[in-house]
C-alpha cells in the first residue's frame, strides 16, 4: 500500500483530492452553498405571493433588472420557482445528500480503503461543481434564467418567444443538467461497484447497515433513470437549436406559424417523469437509510424488521420505475394508461407504510437518546407520514383531476420529499459530523435548529393543503386576478411568515456547522456508541481509513442491547461492534 505514505500537496489534499472522505466534505459544502441560494430564492417568491403589491428593498437589491420599484416581474417569479426547484431537488437533495453520505459511508461502513475508483470519484465531484457553477451563472443571463418550471415542459421551455427565460437561460440549464447527470452516473457506478466488490471479510450483504443498502439501491435507480433524462434533454436541445420536432407541433406564436410538425409535448412528459418519479426516491431513499441507522443507534435497539426494510427498499425502487404516469393523468394520455398508473402508484404506498411502522416499532421500548440527529430522524418520520398520506389522494386518478397542479400537490411533495429528505440530511450531518471533521457539533443549537425548523415546516406546508383544495393553482405570480381566491390571501401571509422563520432557523445550523469545524469539542472515536465499522477508524483522517489491516466483520450492524438469559448485556455494554467475534453459542440474525 504505497499510496499510504505518498506526499500530499495542498492541491491533492484539499482540492483535487481522491480521498472519499474529503470528496464527501466537498459535496456537503457545495450542497450547503447551493441550498443557501435555493432557500433564499424561496424567501423572495414567498414575499411576492404574500404581499404582491408591496415593494421590498431586498427584492430591489437582488433582482436588479427583473423588478421594478421593489416588485419582481412575473417572469422573474417563474424563474425563481424554477431554479429553486431545480437546485433543491438536484443540487441539494441529490448531489448534496447522496454525494455526501454515499461517499463518506460506503467505504467506511463496508470496510474498504476507498471507493473503487478514487479518480472517477474526484471527477464526479468536479463535474457536480462545474454544473453548479453553470447553474449559478445562468442566474445572471440578461433575459433571466430558465423559467418553465423545474419540469421544463416544452413548448414553453423550447421557445424563447414564449418566455424570455427559454433563451440562453434555458440553454445553460440544459448544459448544467447534462453535466450534472454525467456526475451522477459516474458517482453511482462507483458506488455500485464499491459496494459489490470491496466489502471486507465477513461483510455479507445481509450484514450491511441499511444506509449501505439504501445507497446501493439509490445508485441503481439513478443509473436506470438518469440516462433517460439525458436523452430527453438532448432531444429538447435538438428541438431548440437544430429545428427538429420531437416535442413540438402546430405552433402559432407571436403572429407566425412555426415549422414544427408531428412532435408531442406528451412524449417529453413521459421521458421527464420516467426519471422524475424515480428521482424523488433517489432523494428519499438515502435519507431513509440514514434515519434507519440513526434511529437504531439512538434507540439502543436493533432496527425493527431489517429484512423487511431491505425488501421494502427494493420494492419501492422497483415500483418507482413504473408509476411515472401519475404525474400525467390529465396530460391527454390515454385514460386506460391512467388506470394502470393509479394501480401501480397506490401499490407503492404498501412498502412505504411498512417502513413507517418499522421505524415506529424501533422506538417502542427503546432507551431513546435524544441527540439532535435523533430529533431530526423522528421529525423525518412525522413529515414523511403526513406527506405520504396525501399521496393516496393524488395517486387516485379520479381525485387527481381536481388537485393536479394546485397547492395541494406542493404541500404533498414538500412534506414527503422536501422536508423529509432535508431532515434526513440534517440528521446525517449531526450524526456523522464527528467522523467528517473530528469535532462535535453543539447540542443545544441543534435542538433549537430542530424545533424551529419543525414548527416552520408544518406551519408552511400544512395549510397549503387547504388552499390547494380551494382550487388555487401553483406557480401563480399573484392571486389578485381572482376574487374567488381573496380569502386565501391571509393564509399565504401566515405561510410566508413561517417560511421566513424556517429560513432564519437555518442560521443556527450554519453557525453551528462552521464554528464547530474550528472550535467544536474534539470527538472521541465512537461518540454515539454505535456498532458500525466507521467508528473503528481513527478520529484523525488517514488515507486508507484503517492504520493496519481492515478489520473483519463477525455480525450484523444492529446488536444493540443484546442480553443473555439473566438480562445482562452479552458483551458488557449496550452495543456490540460489528468487529466483535461471536461468542460460542451466540446467534447472529444475518
Amino acid at each position, binding site marked *: 500500500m504505497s499510496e499510504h505514505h505518498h506526499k500530499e500537496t495542498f492541491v491533492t489534499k484539499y482540492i483535487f483530492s481522491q480521498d472519499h472522505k474529503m470528496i464527501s466534505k466537498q459535496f456537503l459544502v457545495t450542497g450547503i452553498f447551493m441550498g443557501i441560494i435555493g432557500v433564499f430564492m424561496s424567501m423572495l417568491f414567498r414575499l411576492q405571493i404574500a404581499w404582491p403589491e408591496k415593494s421590498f428593498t431586498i427584492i430591489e437589491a437582488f433582482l436588479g433588472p427583473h423588478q421594478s420599484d421593489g416588485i419582481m416581474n412575473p417572469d422573474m417569479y417563474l424563474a425563481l420557482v424554477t431554479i429553486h426547484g431545480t437546485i433543491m431537488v438536484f443540487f441539494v437533495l441529490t448531489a448534496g445528500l447522496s454525494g455526501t453520505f454515499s461517499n463518506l459511508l460506503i467505504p467506511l461502513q463496508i470496510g474498504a480503503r476507498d471507493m473503487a475508483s478514487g479518480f472517477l470519484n474526484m471527477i464526479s465531484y468536479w463535474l457536480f461543481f462545474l454544473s453548479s457553477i453553470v447553474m449559478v451563472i445562468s442566474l445572471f443571463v440578461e433575459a433571466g434564467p430558465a423559467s418553465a418550471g423545474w419540469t421544463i415542459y416544452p413548448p414553453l421551455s423550447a421557445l424563447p418567444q414564449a418566455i424570455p427565460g427559454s433563451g440562453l437561460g434555458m440553454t445553460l440549464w440544459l448544459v448544467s443538467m447534462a453535466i450534472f447527470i454525467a456526475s451522477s452516473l459516474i458517482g453511482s457506478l462507483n458506488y455500485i461497484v464499491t459496494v459489490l466488490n470491496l466489502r471486507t471479510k465477513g461483510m455479507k450483504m445481509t450484514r450491511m447497515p441499511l444506509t449501505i443498502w439504501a445507497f446501493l439501491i439509490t445508485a441503481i435507480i439513478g443509473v436506470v433513470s438518469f440516462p433517460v433524462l439525458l436523452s430527453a434533454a438532448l432531444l429538447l436541445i435538438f428541438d431548440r437549436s437544430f429545428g427538429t420536432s420531437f416535442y413540438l407541433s402546430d405552433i402559432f406564436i407571436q403572429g407566425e406559424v412555426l415549422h414544427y410538425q408531428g412532435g408531442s409535448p406528451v412524449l417529453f412528459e413521459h421521458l421527464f417523469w420516467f426519471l422524475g418519479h424515480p428521482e424523488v426516491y433517489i432523494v428519499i431513499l438515502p435519507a431513509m437509510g440514514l434515519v434507519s441507522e440513526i434511529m437504531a443507534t439512538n434507540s439502543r435497539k436493533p432496527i425493527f424488521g431489517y429484512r423487511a426494510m431491505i425488501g421494502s427498499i427494493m420494492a419501492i425502487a422497483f415500483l418507482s420505475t413504473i408509476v411515472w404516469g401519475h404525474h400525467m393523468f390529465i396530460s391527454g394520455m390515454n385514460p386506460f394508461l*391512467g388506470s394502470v398508473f393509479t394501480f401501480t402508484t397506490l401499490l407503492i404506498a404498501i412498502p412505504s407504510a411498512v417502513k413507517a411502522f418499522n421505524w415506529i416499532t424501533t422506538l417502542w421500548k427503546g432507551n431513546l437518546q435524544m441527540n439532535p440527529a435523533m430529533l431530526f430522524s423522528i421529525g423525518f418520520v412525522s413529515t414523511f407520514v403526513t406527506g405520504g398520506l396525501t399521496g393516496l389522494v393524488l395517486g387516485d386518478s379520479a381525485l387527481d383531476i381536481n388537485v393536479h397542479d*394546485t397547492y395541494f400537490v406542493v404541500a404533498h411533495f414538500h412534506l414527503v420529499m422536501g422536508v423529509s429528505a432535508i431532515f434526513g440530511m440534517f440528521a446525517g450531518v449531526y450524526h456523522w459530523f464527528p467522523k467528517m471533521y473530528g469535532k462535535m457539533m453543539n447540542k443545544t443549537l441543534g435542538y433549537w435548529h430542530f424545533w424551529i425548523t419543525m414548527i416552520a415546516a408544518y406551519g408552511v406546508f400544512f395549510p397549503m393543503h387547504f388552499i390547494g383544495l380551494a382550487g388555487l*393553482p401553483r406557480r401563480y405570480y399573484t392571486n389578485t386576478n381572482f376574487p374567488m381566491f381573496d380569502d386565501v390571501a391571509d393564509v399565504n401571509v401566515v405561510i410566508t411568515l413561517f417560511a421566513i422563520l424556517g429560513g432564519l432557523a437555518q442560521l443556527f445550523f450554519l453557525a453551528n456547522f462552521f464554528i464547530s469545524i474550528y472550535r467544536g469539542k474534539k470527538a472521541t472515536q465512537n461518540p454515539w456508541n454505535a456498532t458500525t465499522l466507521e467508528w473503528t477508524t481513527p478520529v484523525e483522517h488517514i488515507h486508507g481509513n484503517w492504520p493496519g489491516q481492515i478489520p473483519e466483520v463477525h455480525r450484523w450492524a444492529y446488536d444493540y442491547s443484546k442480553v443473555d438469559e439473566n438480562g445482562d448485556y452479552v458483551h458488557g455494554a449496550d452495543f456490540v461492534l460489528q468487529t466483535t467475534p461471536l461468542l460460542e453459542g451466540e446467534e447472529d440474525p444475518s
Partner: protein
Amino acid sequence: MLALFYIFIAVAIAVSVWQITRILNFRTVTATDKDNETQGKNFMIFMAAMYAMMIYCLIFMNVIMLPESASVEGEHDDNLFNITFILIGIVQFIVQFLLFYFSYKYRGKKENKALFFADSHKLELIWTLTPAVVLVLLIGYGLWQWNNVMDLSDAEDPIIIEVYSKQFQWEARYAGADNTLGRGNVNFIKGINTMGVDMSDKNAADDKKVTELHLPKGRKVIFKFRSQDVLHSAYMPHFRAQMNCVPGMVTEFGFTPKYTTEEMRQQSEVMAKTEKINKIRKAKGEEPYVFDYILLCNKICGASHYGMQMKIIVEEEAEFKKWIAEQPTLAEVIK
C-alpha cells in the same frame, strides 16, 4: 400577529448569539438523561400543538375550500375524496400519536435497558396486509369513478364545445346546428379567424365563436381542447374538471352541470365563502364579489399565466338556447 412574529425573531436571534458564545466552553455534547427528559416532553407538547393545528385547519379552513361539486360526475369525486380524507385523517392521528408518544415514553434513562426486539413476522404481515386491503377498496372505487368520468363514448346528445388556449387567453367555439366542429389548425389562423378554423370544412360554417362559456344545466357537455402555442391546462374546479391543452393534439373531457349559476349562488357553502370574501374586499375598499363558475389556466404557460381565465355561466336549457341562437355563426363573421 406581525408584532408577535418580530418578537419571536428577536428572541431567536438573541438566543442564538447567547448560544454561540457558549459553544466555546460546553461540556457534554451527547444527550444526557436531562436532555432526553426535556426533548421527550417537547415531543408531547409538539404533538398537542400539531393536533390543535390540524383540527383548526380542518374546521376553519373548511370555508375556503371548494363547495360541493357542481357537476353530476363530480359527486363521486367528492364521495371518494371524503372517504379517502377521513381515512388518511385517522391514520395520521394514530401514527403521529404513536411516534411522538413513544418518543416521550421511551426517553432514555441511565438505568433503563432497551428491549432487543428485532423482528416479528406477524406484526409485519399485519401492516402489509391492512394497507393492502384498504388500498384495494380505494383503488376499486377510484378506478370505477375514473372510468365513469373519462369514458365519453356513451354520452347521449352531448353539446360539443371547443376550448382553445393561447398566451394568455381562452377562446371557445360551439359546434353549431350539426353539433360537429369544423377542423382547426394553426395554419388557418388569420385576422378574425383567431382559432384557425378551416372554413372550407363544411362542418365549420355553423360553428360559433364565443368569449364566455354558457352551459345548459343537466346536459352533458363534451369539451375538446386545443392549444395554439404552449401547454395550458383548462381547470374548472367547481366541476371537478381539468384537462391539459396540448399543441398538436386534441384532448377531451366531459361533465354534466348540476346547478345553474343562480342556484349555486344560493348554495350555503358558496354563500359562506362569498360572505367571507366580501368582508375582506370591503375592508380594502373593493367591489363586492359575486360567485361565478370559472375556467382558469393551471399549467405554467408564461409570464401572464396567473391571469388566464374565462367566465362560465350555467343556465336552464331554455335560456341557453336563447343565448346560443343570438350568437353569430362563423360563416357570418368570417366572410
